[in-house]
């Protein structure tokens, strides 16, 4: 069993070493400095071995200090640091049910058990023993670190640590039993997760409200019982015939690959075509031709993230505006406050429109579901095609984003007219145009940076630092503008002129450069 653990650690260290050397030799900034073959250097290997051990130990300690620190800090705020051991043990129940290791899929398990053929039972048991010892030591160490606040005696600390790690082992077995019966993990059952969280929540509330204290004797007996059950669970796990089969199911190549690209999968899920959008009303495609046909289908199949999402925002804005109007009609005080508030925080329109605009998610959908595939066809990369598609896309994206903007602009004007802040007709008109200009600006902006800085590579990874910087700057400018105050007329004029200039320059750039920049990295 320990040979298995040793082998597994050796693989971890070799993997850490190889990743380090790969990063060193493939880093563009260090290009030319580290060019040799370092994979067989013994001295470097030993250094990385120790470095990786120290780093993983520090990582574990840091995480535990953070976890304990948060609990203690919250208890300190509630003036209940004396309830620490009870709260900690209650939280352990959450860990027992929802955070077990044996049935967690992972690349390490895939390599060791599936690829290299280690025994799944031995592997699991070795890790349980390792985690058991490691967690007792770390919990004790960290609790001692915080003991100037906790005031616990060393025996109590040891007993709490023992109970918490024993409960974790019991949890491992209970999870295997659940998987055996229902062929799914506890964590995937919404009912169980919610139940556990509600029960533990109630227990925590009672502990804090009633200052519940576990007597030492209970703690002592509890530790003996939990240790006994943990040993029993451990024996059961070591003999569980089905465990190798579960390992294969949970750590299959496809599962691991999906997990490895979790970020990508999350992004893909965000732009996934909903089943109800598969069917398109044939009337919508009647008389559509070429790029128009292609784009109509694209946007119809992505209704969920574009049209429907814009409608939801529009509805939400509508509700807020109607609410504000009712308040204004109900009381003059509210009318003044709301009117003054809007005038004072006009620049906040930028950040509101930033969040409402669908430009960012739709360009992501364009790449993941469409351009990523289409750019492998030469006909799709012709300058004429790129510009035609850009124009069609810009029309639709702008149109969809205009709906919430129209409601927001119209609503703002209505509120201002009804409130006690009379502006001139010109100011109302310009403010309305400014809202529309911001909406068009964002529609153009996201599409233009997508075409000019096409940020993804063939594997859908974000590769452009410029794109990240521009995205960050967009957010930063919108956010920072909320700190400034402008007269309505000045604000509207500034926004309209800036948006118009930006749109003109951006479109010229796309027309001149997009055929060079819009390609797979």
């Amino acid at each position, binding site marked *: 069993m320990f040979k298995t653990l040793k082998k597994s650690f050796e693989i971890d260290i070799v993997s850490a070493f190889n990743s380090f050397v790969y990063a060193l030799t493939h880093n563009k900034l260090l290009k030319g400095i580290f060019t040799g073959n370092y994979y067989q250097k013994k001295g470097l290997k030993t250094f990385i071995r120790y470095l990786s051990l120290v780093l993983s130990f520090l990582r574990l300690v840091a995480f535990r200090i953070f976890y304990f620190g948060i609990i203690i800090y919250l208890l300190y705020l509630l003036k209940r640091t004396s309830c620490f051991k009870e709260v900690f043990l209650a939280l352990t129940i959450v860990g027992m049910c929802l955070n077990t290791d044996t049935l967690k899929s992972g690349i390490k398990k895939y390599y060791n058990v599936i690829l290299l053929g280690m025994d799944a039972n031995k592997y699991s048991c070795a890790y349980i023993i390792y985690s058991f010892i490691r967690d007792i030591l770390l919990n004790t160490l960290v609790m001692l670190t915080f003991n100037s606040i906790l005031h616990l005696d060393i025996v109590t600390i040891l007993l709490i640590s023992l109970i918490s790690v024993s409960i974790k082992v019991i949890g491992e077995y209970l999870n295997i039993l659940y998987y055996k019966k229902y062929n799914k993990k506890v964590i995937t059952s919404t009912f169980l997760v919610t139940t556990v969280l509600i029960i533990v929540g109630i227990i925590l509330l009672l502990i804090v409200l009633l200052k519940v204290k576990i007597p030492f004797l209970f703690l002592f007996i509890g530790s003996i019982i939990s240790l006994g059950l943990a040993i029993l669970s451990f024996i059961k796990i070591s003999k569980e015939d089905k465990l190798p089969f579960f390992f294969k199911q949970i750590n299959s190549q496809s599962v691991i690959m999906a997990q490895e690209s979790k970020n990508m999968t999350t992004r893909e899920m965000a732009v996934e075509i909903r089943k109800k959008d598969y069917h398109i009303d044939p009337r919508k495609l009647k008389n559509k031709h070429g790029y128009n046909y*292609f784009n109509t*289908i694209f946007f119809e*199949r992505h209704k969920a993230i574009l049209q429907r999402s814009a409608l939801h925002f529009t509805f939400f804005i509508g509700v807020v505006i109607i609410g504000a109007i009712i308040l204004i009609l109900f009381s003059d005080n509210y009318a003044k406050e709301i009117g003054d508030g809007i005038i004072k925080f006009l620049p906040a329109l930028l950040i509101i429109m930033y969040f409402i605009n669908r430009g960012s998610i739709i360009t992501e959908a364009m790449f993941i579901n*469409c351009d*990523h595939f289409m750019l492998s*066809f*030469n006909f799709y990369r*012709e300058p004429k095609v790129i510009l035609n598609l850009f124009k069609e896309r810009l029309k639709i994206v702008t149109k969809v984003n205009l709906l919430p903007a129209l409601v927001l602009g119209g609503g703002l004007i209505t509120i201002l007219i009804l409130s006690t802040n009379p502006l001139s007709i010109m100011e109302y008109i310009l403010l309305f145009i400014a809202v529309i200009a911001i909406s068009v600006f964002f529609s153009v902006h996201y599409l233009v940076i997508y075409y000019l800085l096409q940020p993804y590579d063939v594997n859908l990874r974000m590769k452009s630092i410029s794109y990240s910087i521009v995205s960050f700057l967009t957010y930063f400018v919108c956010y920072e503008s909320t700190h400034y105050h402008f007269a309505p007329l000045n604000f509207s004029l500034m926004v309209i002129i800036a948006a118009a200039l930006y749109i003109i320059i951006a479109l010229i750039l796309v027309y001149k450069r997009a055929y060079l920049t819009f390609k797979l990295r």
Partner: protein
Amino acid sequence: MKLVVENLTKDYGDNRVLDDVNFTFEEGKIYGLIGRNGAGKTTFFNCLNEDIEKTSGDIYLEKEIRFPLKSKDIGYVIATPKVPEFLTGREFLQFFLDINEDKIKDLKSIDEYLKMVRLSKEDGDKLMKDYSHGMKNKMQLLINFIDNKDVLLLDEPLTSLDVVVSEEMKTLLKKKKKEHIIIFSTHILELALSLCDEIVIINNKKLELVEKKNLNTTKYKNKIINALKDEKDV
């Protein structure tokens, strides 16, 4: 029509993958491009297709006059088929036919095109997101066949197809070769021998024609394998 490669060199950093490659491909022939793993077949295709920048050298298409080869002259079927998954097969074909209707000779109906690659009407109405690897490959091949570019680059295109479709594709390729230059990259020597008119190996960073002359298949096969072996293997 000829595809002329002159002094083509491609480096990745310090690593030279193609070194002063000179070769002429002729119309009416299917060239089997064979090389060992990592020999540079895909790099060669990517250079032709302008997917990567070549370090030096020139690539021309020679008809009545000689002009630089551009990606618009090439149909490129990549090993991992990529088709827009938000469309059905039928919608994809419809779109493609719409935008190329003035260029396509002998325009057929969508069902006829689907039939060419043995895709049923029902398959045509499925989102390509739900297609198998082989079905996606068929769509990719079909689009490139309809597109009818002067040069057709095929990177391991038949390996994921079932035997029936694979045979039909081979027949289609043989028909296509008359007015095209087809370069077909594969690791399967038997496939190359059964389909291709010439075998070109990529070895020691260069392209080299393996002449058949009067050799029978077995001897020719051995000659190709020997040509691909380097000193370490001997």
